[in-house]
């Protein structure tokens, strides 16, 4: 396995007395497409919030390329190469598509001169052109000036990924990118994410759609009740007893296992 880009070392997070994440460690290999899966309430989104800096871990350490990032404010992390999308689409509803994407350029253009340069007063600025070109290359050039609130759900999901992508991240955290999409849209999204991965961006994906996980990701980390229960290939994840138990409950897991053994014997 190649070198790790992002790693969690014995990370815990408590909200008051409630331990949401307990002693979780895992590596996201450079260039991988890693899935972070687990039942509802397992702490997947909390892990994303810890990595992106919305919360600080109670214990443990998060490292990007070997450097600890826990002391950095959340707004500095996108500049280091950590960009994310959200479980519920969080585009700016009153901004147009291209303006939402231009917001993703902030980490590269947020100095005083960048802040005071008009984006579209006298023709199109280079930032606006860049955003429009990226939208076009991702097949989203239809409505650059349209206000986001009026667009269909699947399109908005993609725009959110493009907004994260325009920051030129090393790692992209995607929180349930396929939630609420139909089969065609999901297949479409999978190809879209494959293209991104092939351009050299490491993906860390929270996803419930197991067929998408199997077809997209090469590495999986499974959480249950805030603890890591599996870390390995996506091929074997559905045969792992601990994972089966977490998803199906003990008795159902035994039944499934017995069934599998019976099938094997037969």
């Amino acid at each position, binding site marked *: 396995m190649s070198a790790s880009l992002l790693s969690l070392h014995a990370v815990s997070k408590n909200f008051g007395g409630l331990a949401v994440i307990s002693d979780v460690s895992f590596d996201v290999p450079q260039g991988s497409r890693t899935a972070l899966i687990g039942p509802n309430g397992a702490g997947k989104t909390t892990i994303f919030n810890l990595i992106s800096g919305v919360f600080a871990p109670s214990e443990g350490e998060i490292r990007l390329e070997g450097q600890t990032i826990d002391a950095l404010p959340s707004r500095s992390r996108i500049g280091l190469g950590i960009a994310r999308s959200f479980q519920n689409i969080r585009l*700016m509803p009153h*901004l*147009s598509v291209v303006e939402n994407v231009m*917001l993703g350029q902030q*980490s590269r253009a*947020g100095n005083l001169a960048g*802040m005071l340069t*008009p984006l579209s*007063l006298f023709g199109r600025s280079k930032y606006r052109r860049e955003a429009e070109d990226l939208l076009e290359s991702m097949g989203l050039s239809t409505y650059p*000036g349209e206000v986001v609130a009026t667009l269909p759900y699947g399109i908005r999901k993609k725009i959110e990924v493009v907004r994260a992508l325009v920051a030129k991240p090393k790692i992209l955290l995607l929180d349930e990118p396929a939630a609420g999409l139909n089969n065609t849209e999901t297949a479409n999204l999978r190809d879209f994410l494959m293209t991104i991965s092939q351009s050299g961006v490491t993906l860390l994906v929270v996803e419930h759609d197991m067929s998408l996980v199997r077809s997209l990701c090469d590495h999986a980390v499974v959480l249950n009740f805030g603890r890591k229960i599996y870390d390995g290939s996506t091929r074997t994840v559905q045969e792992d007893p601990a994972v089966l138990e977490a998803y199906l409950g003990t008795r159902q897991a035994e039944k499934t296992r017995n069934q599998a053994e019976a099938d094997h014997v037969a």
Partner: protein
Amino acid sequence: MSGYWAGILSILAINVIFAYGIFLPVATGQLNLGGAGFQALGAYSAAYLSAMYGLPVPVTVGVGMVVAGVVGFLIAFPILRTRGVYLVLATFAFAEVVAGTILNSDTLGGAMGMSVPAFIDWEVPVIVAVCVTLFVFYLMSTRFGLTMRATHDDEVVTDLMGVNIRMVQVSAFAIGGALAGLAGGLYAHAFSFVEIQSFNALISIYVLLYVLLGGTQTAWGPLAGAAFFTLLPEFLRSFLPTVKSALAALVGIEGPVGPPDDSWRFVILGALTIAMMVFRPEGLITRTMIERLRFRRSTAGKEVTA
């Protein structure tokens, strides 16, 4: 030009500048109900420098603007720690503190007010209002304007995009304070007299209404709101009697007609305000509307070239 129309133009120009001063924090997601306080700071700074030291108008107005801007910057840090209705109350309380301080200050004339020796005609506020309008349009087209509007929509995500939202909020509040102070300084010279009673809570409410009803999504909103709500009462004042006597003649009543008379124009204004809130809460001018106009223009252009 008659004194009446000169006065209307001056107050219109001042209201536009004042509305932009409140628009900047509101577009960033902070309701500022302390407009009168910033305006009073600018007006009294200008009045004091003009009356005591006889300084020229550009200096007095400039100092008024800087004073309001610096005070805005300083109070932004504690005030912007509050949210929602508490922020509204905090800004409101700030205006009351300013009013109370001036009312109890003998140097500034207390309840008697101060006369301002240097007079400016209507052209000066109008020219300044045009410059301020252009400045705000420029500001909203920059990345700073983009981050302001993004902060308004979602602070958490804007922060994660790498924006220093605190810096954006404080800057918008302070620049807005400076513009309100500029409006105050011009007011002092245009009307040659300042008294603290004319910077009351009602003024803060009105200017916030200009902005909210005009629309907070684009820089067109405050312009439309300030123009509409400044000119409407005057329009009603001059046309209401005509409309009424025409109606009276139509139904055959002779002699003087009872209410609604002249002073009812504020009732009509209030009713219109409520109607706006009900039927178009996002304000008169919205982004979708502007985009649609632009889209229509660009497609029309394409048809011509094709």
